[in-house]
């Protein structure tokens, strides 16, 4: 790792220690919240690269990617610019890609759709875990999963609960994306709030309060809830910084830290 750790890595505690640096992530649930003006996809791309990247010393990590939003070629093109070849990783079985663009649940229930999807995920996790590798499950995104589940919030939460059981059973990490602004804030019992209760780390991408700016695209707030478990305690921390999405990379800087 020759490049300096970015603010995002620091906020996510991805930079401490060279060896086993995915270890604190085991069993965590990460939620990326974004909105229309500030798309949070770049955070997801960053995390794909981070978790799949072969120059990680703990290279035994596998990403299971459940795509509802974009086809494989889309992610492949973006990650290639960032210096990570997804097609190769897919052949090396470091990336398991589920194309769920066409997933439609039967009207009579979730039997065929969501349960089958969960079965496929668990099957993949079982295979990978038996090889003693870290598994990261990425779901892009929860909002479209809800669409696929015929708008049933309950089914989505059941699905997330089952995925959560994989974190305790196999030590998986779950990374999800949700579009916050498509849910009305006045409505109780909403999906974002439920997801927030489930998540250990929340990464929120939102526009600047002061409005649009030419050289700042938005701000990221990373809320890292501390959690105690057998692996030791993680201290809670909150970081807030601005970002600017560039062609091949993203700049992160503190407010006012750029002339």
């Amino acid at each position: 790792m020759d490049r300096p750790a970015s603010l995002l890595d620091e906020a996510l505690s991805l930079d401490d220690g060279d060896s086993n640096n995915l270890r604190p992530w085991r069993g965590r649930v990460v939620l990326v919240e974004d909105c229309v003006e500030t798309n949070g996809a770049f955070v997801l791309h960053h995390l794909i690269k981070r978790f799949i990247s072969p120059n990680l010393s703990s290279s035994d990590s596998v990403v299971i990617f459940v795509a509802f939003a974009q086809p494989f070629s889309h992610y492949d093109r973006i990650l290639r610019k960032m210096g990570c070849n997804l097609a190769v990783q897919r052949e090396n079985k470091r990336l398991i890609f589920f194309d769920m663009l066409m997933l439609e649940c039967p009207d009579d229930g979730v039997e065929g759709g969501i349960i089958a999807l969960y079965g496929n995920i668990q099957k993949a996790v079982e295979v990978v875990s038996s090889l003693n590798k870290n598994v990261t499950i990425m779901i892009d995104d929860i909002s479209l999963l809800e669409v696929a589940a015929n708008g049933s919030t309950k089914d989505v939460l059941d699905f997330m609960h089952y995925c959560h059981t994989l974190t305790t059973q196999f030590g998986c990490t779950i990374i999800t994306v949700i579009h916050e602004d498509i849910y009305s804030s006045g409505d109780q019992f909403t999906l974002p709030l439920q997801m927030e209760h489930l998540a250990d780390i929340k990464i929120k991408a939102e526009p600047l309060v002061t409005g649009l700016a030419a050289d700042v695209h938005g701000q990221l707030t990373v809320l890292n809830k501390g959690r105690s478990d057998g692996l030791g305690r993680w201290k809670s921390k909150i970081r807030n910084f601005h970002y600017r999405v560039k062609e091949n990379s993203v700049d992160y800087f503190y407010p006012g830290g750029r002339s």
Partner: protein
Amino acid sequence: MADAICRVLRDGALEGEHATSLTINDSVDSPFGPIVFDYIFTQLSSFISSGKSQSRGIVLVAFSRSPSFTVELLKSRGIDIATTHEWLRILDCYTDPLGWKERLKERGAIKTPSTEASLIVNLCKDVRNLDGLFSLIIALGKGLVGEGKSRFSVAIDSVSEMLRHTSLSSVASLLSNARSHAQISSVFWLHHFDLHDMKTNAAFEYMSSMVANVKPLATATNVLRENSENLSLLEQNYKRGQFHASLKRRNGRVRIMCEEFSIGQSLVKFTSMSARKNETAQSLVPKVQFNLQLSDKERSDRAKVVLPFEHQETEKSVQIYDGRKSETEGKYDSSTEKLQKQEDSRRGEIIYFRDSDDEMPDSDEDPDDDLDI
């Protein structure tokens, strides 16, 4: 005070009364409900395992965390794991609440889930059937303490998960059945109150004899939007919080208590509110250029000031300056009786003649309308 709650749970129910029940409320702003739940659970567990409580066993209905977590938790708190089979049963509603894994296994899609089946853990595969769940809880409890007069406790983590699978009325009926069961000594449950509407929250509070609310220290919901200076303030909300508890007595009296807690190395520590009040007040108030608080000297000076009319209580004569120069000013030391006599003779008088009898004193007529300007 959290200990007071634990003691009430330990003492359990009187003969012929409902079991004591506790709701632990938390929200996403201060997500420490599970930690407080763990604290109360472990306290009660140590009471039970040492035979100090009314109940002889505890049944944990685990929806949101796995049984292995609970076992680890008990281990870390120094509770003897070897004896757990005598007083603990875990109803595992976490691993496979809807039977998906079982169905997938039957179809051969996945391998056997490595559920930690053991003496103390029992798997529940359909949490939507609350009648079945209730009889399972009772069966587990009776298995622990046997038939007869011995009682056991029930802990539910959490009712928010239960509400997702069923309706409020069926969850309420389960809880009220548990409360009125003769062999249950105490029931407590965790509840994320921001996920539900007011009606649901009120229903749970009615059913509990104690309510514990976990609240953030700084209640700024949109702090995030403001500036990064407030971030450290917000960060405090993930380390510390307020703990409000209300204990309802049998006669309807409610005792409300407040405490502060801080999250240490995987432990929660409760401190009394007053001890930390000043400290937190100072840390929460933004820096201003004027004093919001009095120094000790200012406070004692303020206490010395005699307010008008305050001396009336102390049997001293009235000393109000009425605008006239008093002759008695110099000889104030003379007896008060003489003074009053003098004042009587000098008392002023206002003689008022009404202009005419046909005009009422406070008529609406403009008194100045005869002026020719």
